[in-house]
């Protein structure tokens, strides 16, 4: 590159002297183009690009406790508005969703609490969010019955985590629920670490009952061809990662296995790359595996998901406007069993 090529785009300073919409603020971030502001505005641009690209399937990979912290309806609405096509998440995220679907709540707290006292009151802490034990227990009790129902209906057939999520969504009567929204919109939810959540431990409660009639069977490997087949049949694949972990790896590895490579990627995380763990690994590292194409639009935003993702979503929804509608390209080849 020549010297002048480096000096083509001067930083434009932010002008915040009048009321601004979220997207107007993001545009100011874009004009600054620097540090976290620049990365966040790039993330908005890439998310918008995925949605306007008629050939792109949009994967949202979620780890961490963002559902109890307040992103439950946001994710549910993204599903209902067809602004994401596939959700890949931890089992815990959907446990948190199901807790609220059966009437439980998460509460605002503080990270400075007496945890020994919380234990004595049967209250669990997720950083500064509190959840009473009964919220879990009521879900456990209900799910113990639901597991039995599903097992009887499926007559011993092993379910993938996607089919399991679909069966749960069918039975949860709550419009705000992510599982319910996905069931109604026929949006697949994959939970590649489903047993490492309350769903797994409830299975023990369900299967160890003396009078159990049928035991639910979830097959961890059954979802692999399902997820790879979506990546393979989609002309393009885009990924938004909140956190990282198993959900991020499941999307990236499926895109690799289907010999595609991601066309778009946004990662929002606070993890660091030096440990070699996936959550903090850079997207450049992803290129070396072939999981993302070298020319893909991509950005990593280092920041708190609870701040970054709502801003990003609000900005993109504003850009798309009220008349925007989208038919997922995967609707040409994807149908859940009904």
């Amino acid at each position: 590159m020549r010297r002048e090529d480096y000096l083509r785009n001067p930083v434009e300073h932010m002008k915040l002297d009048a009321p601004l919409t979220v997207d107007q603020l993001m545009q100011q971030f874009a004009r600054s183009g620097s540090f976290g502001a620049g990365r966040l505005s790039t993330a908005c641009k890439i998310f918008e690009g995925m949605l306007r690209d008629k050939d792109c399937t949009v994967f949202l990979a979620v780890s961490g406790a963002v559902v109890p912290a307040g992103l439950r309806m946001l994710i549910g609405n993204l599903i209902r508005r067809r602004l994401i096509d596939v959700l890949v998440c931890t089992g815990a995220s959907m446990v948190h969703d199901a807790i609220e679907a059966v009437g439980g709540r998460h509460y605002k707290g503080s990270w400075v609490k007496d945890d020994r006292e919380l234990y004595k009151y049967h209250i669990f802490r997720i950083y500064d969010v509190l959840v009473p034990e009964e919220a879990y227990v009521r879900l456990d009790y209900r799910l113990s019955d639901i597991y039995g129902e599903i097992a009887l209906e499926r007559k011993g057939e092993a379910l993938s985590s996607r089919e399991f999520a679909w069966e749960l969504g069918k039975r949860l009567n709550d419009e705000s629920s992510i599982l319910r929204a996905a069931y109604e919109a026929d949006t697949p939810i994959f939970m590649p670490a489903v047993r490492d959540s309350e769903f797994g431990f409830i299975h023990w409660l369900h299967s160890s009952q003396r009078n159990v009639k049928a035991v639910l069977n979830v097959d961890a490997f059954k979802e692999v061809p399902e997820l790879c087949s979506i990546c393979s049949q989609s002309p393009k694949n885009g990924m938004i990662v909140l956190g990282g972990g198993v959900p991020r790896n499941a999307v990236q590895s499926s895109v690799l296995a289907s010999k595609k490579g991601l066309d778009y990627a946004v990662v929002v995380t606070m993890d660091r790359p030096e440990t070699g763990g996936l959550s903090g690994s850079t997207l450049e590292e992803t290129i070396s595996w072939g999981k993302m194409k070298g020319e893909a639009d991509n950005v990593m935003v280092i920041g708190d998901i609870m701040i970054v993702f709502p801003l990003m979503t609000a900005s993109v929804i504003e850009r798309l406007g009220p008349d925007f509608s989208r038919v997922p390209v995967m609707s040409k080849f994807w149908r859940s069993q009904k």
Partner: protein
Amino acid sequence: MKRRTNLKRFCGNCDGHNSYDYPSRVFCSTRHWQGKDPIVDTLWNCDDWNQVSQECYCVREAEKARDSHKQK
């Protein structure tokens, strides 16, 4: 830390209990496993009682709730 052995013999002090209708009723995993109604009073007990490994406030709070209910 020494384990207390003089706990009152209530479901709220049993290792099979979890919070259900705090503080008056608990979920009993032992009864659930046995196929019996698992929702029992915190201040009840049965022959399967087994002391908790870490104490909680269930019994104390259930007694308070019971006493305040009596006063009304």
